[in-house]
């Protein structure tokens, strides 16, 4: 069933559960480091390994980050809350319970306004709560790293105990056919907000921001929500939109075919773009929650909360409005800039002295194209706002033309050094020295006597052909204005 056909009959409702790994120096309940990519099981201690007798101590920095996230999402901050134990057996969980918040989240009842194609959607935030991450299982042998058929499994507990914030939206209704785009925009904007707060690296490819997409369909004009599925580990912005879209079509086909949707978790397959059935999930899942008796309740003082509120960075939508006014961008230009994830990059480039239009031109043009080609994002290209500002300054002062500037960008992406080093090493500067240019001009006149005659006869427009010949000989590095002057001097 096509997406449009599905939308003709059904209305999608979605909800997102986003897990964010905080970038605190130490874990949620112990002093182990949190650095990504260390040798397996080297960042562990009795507490995060759940050894008998070990006890948790809450990381105050993680609580601070949680409160700041809650405030940035316009949430209430609980005056008093606790951790609970979520009990279930799994080898990557050292205690066979996860220390998490249950019915007393630190932040609740907030919202975030998300803009899609000029329309604002208010996404309700149900809660943001603290918990600890689990270890990571690695299944060896068998097929494609899955547990079924594996010869054996290894567990890396470096990740066990990393502080997580889980941000849960309320069901989002009424976005119609745009539901997948709104879902994507929410996650993208949430990522920007977290980045702005400085509380997480928010690198989806490293798992520091992980997303579950809940989606259900309702018959047009029906009052009650349909049965939802929960698609796990949708770990890129593009995938959020694709997975939501896929589930809309899949569920519609099932419902139209007379079937019913099972409440279940589903797995997202990035390569094939489909979801497949996982474990059946029902409300009867019994985690036997109870308050963690090894921790005392948290009671963040109102003074502290207000202090954190007053030090929050500018909210993303206010910042966008301010920057658009400062830069004089059209709505479309602004949207493209935000959509490309280039807002901060452009801002920093402008701060380094570049005109806003020029900064936008580089990031959304040449650099966006290079990012697409290498399937990465702008921030990971290896080109900094300072680099781009320097390239534009070289253009402004006449050292580079656009063509040469593009070659400098190639050098930057290839890691050849700073713009000035690349100009030097590649010999890219425009030649405006009369000695070298004069020789090339004389050569061009000698090679094209009939063109020279036309110019002598007053047809100045013919100079273009000679300029072209000079440029060709100088491999594009001639100062075109000076070449023209030299030609006219010699032929009058």
């Amino acid at each position, binding site marked *: 069933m096509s997406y449009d056909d599905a939308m003709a009959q059904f209305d999608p409702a979605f909800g997102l559960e986003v897990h964010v790994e905080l970038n605190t120096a130490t874990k949620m309940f112990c002093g182990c480091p949190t650095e990504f990519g260390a040798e397996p099981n080297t960042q562990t201690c009795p507490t995060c390994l759940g050894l008998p007798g070990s*006890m948790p101590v809450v990381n105050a920095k993680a609580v601070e980050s949680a409160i700041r996230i809650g405030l940035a999402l316009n949430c209430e901050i609980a005056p008093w809350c606790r951790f609970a134990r979520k009990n279930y057996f799994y080898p990557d969980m050292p205690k066979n319970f996860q220390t998490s918040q249950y019915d007393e989240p630190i932040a609740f009842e907030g919202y975030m306004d998300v803009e899609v194609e000029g329309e604002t959607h208010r996404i309700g935030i149900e809660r943001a709560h603290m918990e600890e991450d689990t270890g990571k299982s690695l299944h060896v042998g068998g097929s494609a790293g899955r547990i079924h058929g594996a010869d054996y499994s290894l567990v890396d507990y470096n990740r066990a105990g990393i502080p997580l914030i889980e941000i849960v939206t309320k069901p989002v209704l009424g976005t119609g056919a745009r539901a997948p785009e709104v879902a994507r925009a929410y996650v993208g904007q949430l990522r920007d907000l977290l980045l702005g707060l400085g509380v997480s690296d928010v690198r989806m490819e490293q798992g520091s921001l992980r997303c579950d997409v809940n989606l259900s369909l309702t018959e047009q004009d029906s009052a009650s929500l349909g049965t939802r599925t929960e698609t796990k580990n949708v770990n890129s912005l593009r995938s959020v939109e694709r997975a939501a879209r896929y589930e809309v079509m899949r569920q519609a086909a099932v419902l139209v075919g007379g079937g019913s949707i099972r409440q279940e978790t589903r797995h997202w397959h990035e390569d094939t773009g489909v979801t497949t059935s996982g474990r059946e999930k029902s409300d009867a899942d019994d985690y036997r929650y109870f308050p963690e008796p090894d921790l005392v309740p948290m009671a963040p003082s109102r003074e502290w909360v207000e202090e954190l509120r007053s030090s929050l960075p500018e909210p993303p939508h206010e910042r966008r409005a301010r920057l658009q006014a400062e830069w004089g961008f059209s709505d479309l230009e602004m949207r493209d800039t935000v959509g490309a994830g280039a807002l901060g990059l452009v801002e920093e480039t402008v701060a380094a002295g570049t005109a806003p239009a020029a900064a936008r031109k580089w990031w959304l043009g040449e650099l966006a194209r290079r990012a697409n080609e290498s399937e990465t994002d702008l921030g990971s290209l290896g080109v900094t706002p300072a680099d781009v500002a320097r390239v534009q300054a070289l253009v402004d002062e006449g050292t580079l033309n656009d063509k040469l500037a593009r070659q400098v960008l190639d050098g930057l992406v290839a890691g050849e050094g700073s713009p000035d080093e690349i100009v030097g090493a590649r010999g890219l500067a425009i030649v405006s020295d009369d000695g070298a240019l004069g020789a090339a001009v004389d050569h061009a006149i000698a090679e094209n006597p009939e063109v020279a005659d036309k110019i002598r006869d007053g047809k100045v427009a013919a100079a273009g052909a000679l300029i072209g010949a000079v440029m060709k000989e100088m491999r594009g590095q001639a100062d075109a204005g000076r070449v023209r002057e030299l030609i006219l001097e010699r032929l009058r």
Partner: protein
Amino acid sequence: MNTPDRRTASAIAEALAAGETTSVAVTQAHLDRIAEVDGAVRAFLHVDAEGALRDATASDERRAAGHPWSPLDGVPIAIKDVLATRGLPTTCGSRILEGWVPPYDATVVARLRGAGLPILGKTNMDEFAMGSSTEHSAYGPTHNPWDLDRIPGGSGGGSAAAVSAYEAPLALGTDTGGSIRQPGAVTGTVGVKPTYGGVSRYGLVSLANSLDQAGPVTRTVLDAALLHELIGGHDPLDSTSIDAPVGDLVAAARRGADGDLRGVRIGVVRELGGEGYQAGVLARFEESVELMTKAGAEAVEVSCPHFVHALATYYLILPAEASSNLARFDAMRYGLRVTPDDDPDHRPSAEDVMRATREAGFGDEVKRRIILGTYALSSGYYDAYYGTAQKVRTLVTRDFEAAFEHADVLVSPTAPTTAFRLGEKVDDPLAMYLNDLATIPANLSGVPGISVPSGLADEDGLPAGVQILAPAMADDRVYRVGAALESLLARGWGGALLDRAPELTGASS
């Protein structure tokens, strides 16, 4: 057979300070005693002779250099096997932890090492501290030194028996519902459960986190105070530990030893006595109250009406917390691993291994409480069981608060009976649970308590104990009143109660 070293820890400390003996000599004497009698008593699961003598040698060197680390530097100690000891096996009396050697020390153990006490070894206990007789140890029961056919109490029967049999001058225990005090009562020794949060739980393998508390097991009240001051005080690794000084407990014990109780109000708890209590135990208790009254104390009767629900409340909260705490024993990271191999065509999954290991590694009492706790926490039952239990717990605390308005300390028999025979109640869990009737309320509300020997019951000639409870953070009161009662009783007996225990006649098993 050599004569055991019957000196108290404080007497040994004085002798060490005076240069009359060495830690090596004292430690060796206790190791010799263990070698002679522990085959019959079976108080120890693991003896570390080499480590204890190495620590004793270092202690003697420090003392020779004039820099002892603490008043008890060089006095050896035994440690209940529920406390993590770096480099020494820690089994909690369970098969599932057989062979596990912790890579870290419990905070109380680290403090003992930092105070210079040689560690003799690890003492026997009911599996994961579930029991009142030590019969639920996977490694066999400990025997009461007063009568080897009887239980030494539990769960910390090993620590109490070791101190009672002069195998150690000091021991550490843990008390979740009476596991320090009840063994103290039935072995004629002193046991203290400190205020909840007064002693760090870091490294204490949790039975029920909101009830557990480590404390001293000794032969005198003064020794308990000396040990308590060493292990007590705030620990940043335990979020539930109280950030306040431990208090001047030794001074309180010394003050109490003069036997003067003028101005002290003693509350006799009406609900902790009468039916279900052995006549000889009650008789010794009444004598103790009378002695204290004669020494100037004012005795009042107080009522704590919700104490009758304490046992039921305890048996919901404890299994609930325990069921979650014990989930980590799954063969994935440490301890026992049992791989089921009955089906050659089916390679066992992680879940199969977990199931087989837990089936083989846990004893019946542990399984019983895991099932109870899992049930009590289940969705749909939580409010009725765990939720209600927490409410009753609050009521018990209010009873204490009301009682302490009329009395400085509360008193009762520690345990309803003297030591029963091995095997007598092991198949009757409810009868076993009743042993903790008088001790459980203190754990539910976190108040401190001590058990002091009150004499021998007429029926069987076995020791009984008096329990003295004080408000939270008023641990000094249990030491003052405990030391006073101890001294008043000793005047009547003409010596310590333990002097009347029969001679142990060497290894029998």
